[in-house]
């Protein structure tokens, strides 16, 4: 969003003679932290022999969990976008009374560990609860169904998405939204044409986080949706059943199938904001 009229300098261009050593040091330090952060992934790659990957992935039923994970997380992210975005927008624009209270609620919901969410979901939507009974009238059940899986994933990821989107919307310069209104845009149009592209960076981050939370959702999922099996449960049960060697390849699968979406979203955000960086 920076409007600075500075042609992006390359690293070494920018650093003056005196600054160069400092910058190299900074890059080194950053690199170290980054590699430390990626260490588990490196460990994963080092640990997988090609043969173990092939044998785990070609085992019967290894494909289905991937599909289910993608479907459920896709649905989850869809639900979050539809329900969470308006809430975040209203909060960011101070359209709701007592904004602090709303925020506190979101923060609290962020703090429930997934396992606890799962246990509480039993109380909320178990078959013998009022909601569960109501659901069964429309032939839905929130235990051990795709629906239950989505419910669990939504609850694991929603606070991350809503808080992220809220922050993203808040970082948009209000004058530009006012400008859109002056030029005749209804709030909805202004949202699509101005707020959304300008909040793209923060939204990408909110989406990536929500996606990661939902496709990796485990704590709540294992409690209310033991099946259909997504990848995290596949990893878990394989671990229980046949051990690490066959479980770890699925972690790689999870990485590989889950990564494109966040990468795309980040790419979109860079384009939407008109940042053209390396």
């Amino acid at each position, binding site marked *: 969003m920076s409007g600075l009229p500075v042609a992006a300098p390359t690293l070494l261009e920018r650093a003056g003679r005196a600054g160069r050593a400092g910058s190299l040091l900074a890059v080194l330090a950053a690199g170290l932290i980054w590699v430390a952060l990626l260490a588990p992934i490196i460990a994963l790659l080092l640990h997988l022999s090609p043969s173990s990957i092939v044998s785990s992935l070609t085992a019967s039923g290894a494909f289905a969990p991937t599909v289910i994970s993608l479907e459920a997380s896709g649905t989850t992210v869809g639900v979050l976008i539809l329900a969470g975005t308006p809430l975040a927008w209203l909060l960011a624009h101070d359209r709701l009374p007592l904004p602090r209270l709303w925020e506190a609620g979101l923060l609290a919901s962020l703090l429930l560990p997934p396992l606890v969410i799962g246990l509480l979901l039993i109380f909320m939507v178990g078959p013998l609860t009022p909601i569960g009974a109501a659901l069964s009238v429309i032939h839905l059940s929130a235990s051990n169904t795709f629906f239950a899986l989505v419910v669990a994933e939504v609850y694991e990821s929603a606070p991350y998405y809503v808080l992220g989107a809220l922050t993203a919307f808040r970082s948009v310069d209000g004058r*530009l939204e006012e400008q859109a209104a002056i030029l005749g845009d209804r709030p909805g149009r202004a949202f699509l044409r101005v707020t959304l592209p300008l909040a793209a960076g923060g939204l990408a981050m909110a989406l990536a986080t929500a996606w990661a939370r939902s496709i990796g959702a485990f704590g709540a999922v294992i409690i209310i949706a033991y099946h259909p099996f997504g990848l995290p449960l596949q990893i878990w049960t394989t671990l229980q059943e046949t051990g690490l060697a066959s479980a770890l390849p699925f972690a790689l699968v999870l990485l590989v199938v889950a990564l494109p979406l966040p990468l795309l979203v980040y790419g979109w955000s860079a384009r939407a904001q*008109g940042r053209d960086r390396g």
Partner: protein
Amino acid sequence: MLRVAIEVERRRFQVAADFEVAAGERMSLFGPSGSGKTTILETITGLVRPRTGEIRLGDRILLRTAAPAMDLPVWRRRVGLLRQNPALFPHLSVDQNLTYGQGRRRAQDPEELIRRLELGDLGRARPAQLSGGQAHRVAAARLLLADHDALFLDEPYTGLDRRLARLLTDLIRDTAERRHLPTVMVTHELPEAQAFADTMAVLDEGRVLQRGHASEIVRRPASRRVAELVGYVDFLGLPEGGTLGLHPDRIRPGASPGLGRVLRGTVRRRRPSGAVWEADLEVASSPTATLTCRFDDVPPDPGADCEVTLLDPPRFDRDGKLTAETAR
């Protein structure tokens, strides 16, 4: 026709404005920095909410705080405002910014506008690649291309040289005339204000001090304060009481008794100003006063005496109000 009667709370005073601008009328709003000009425009546009008031545009009520209360949101008011900060959309190209507000009804031919504002080769640039004046012109063009029922321009000349300023004035005039819109412009440049506007309102600390024809206000400011605001830099105390307002443009070097009162003074300082010169003169009148006068050529050396003629200066009484008789 735009009818405004509003009271807006600001930090240190209240802005109270009550005026009308007829359809097709061009009004300029003149006033020192911080006097409430932007506040008035933003209130009419719907960006600032007044404490009380009513705003009508044509037969539409944009705002009414009295019952039955009414408050149209910005996007329904159809009031175009060019703000002091150009607020270009940073994620859109210049072309996309220009056509942002274009509705079904084409308000203006974009090609012509772009050509006249010399934006021709900027179409694919991003706002971050524009110079200050270029950004301002794009913002102006974007506004003129949108379809509004009234036009407000808050310092449209920011960052523009004289030539571009005049081009923009013509453009806004044309647009306002063709679309028969009530138009209000805020500017600190008196000549620009006059070149643009039929009428003028002088604002100070949130109140309208005088409203009328621009040349009328400049020639006959209703009070000393108005005179100060429209460019009278010096005031000359009169032995018979009251003061004369002295405008640098309305003091002639040399004694031309047929044209007005002649004063004698001593040159204290001189300097070039534009294509001409200015000199500060100390006048020998009873309370010693200084006045600034324009010379076509180099003024006399400092210390030298010289005579000047005051062209029809307005006269103010002890309370600072314009007195009927002028001081020939």
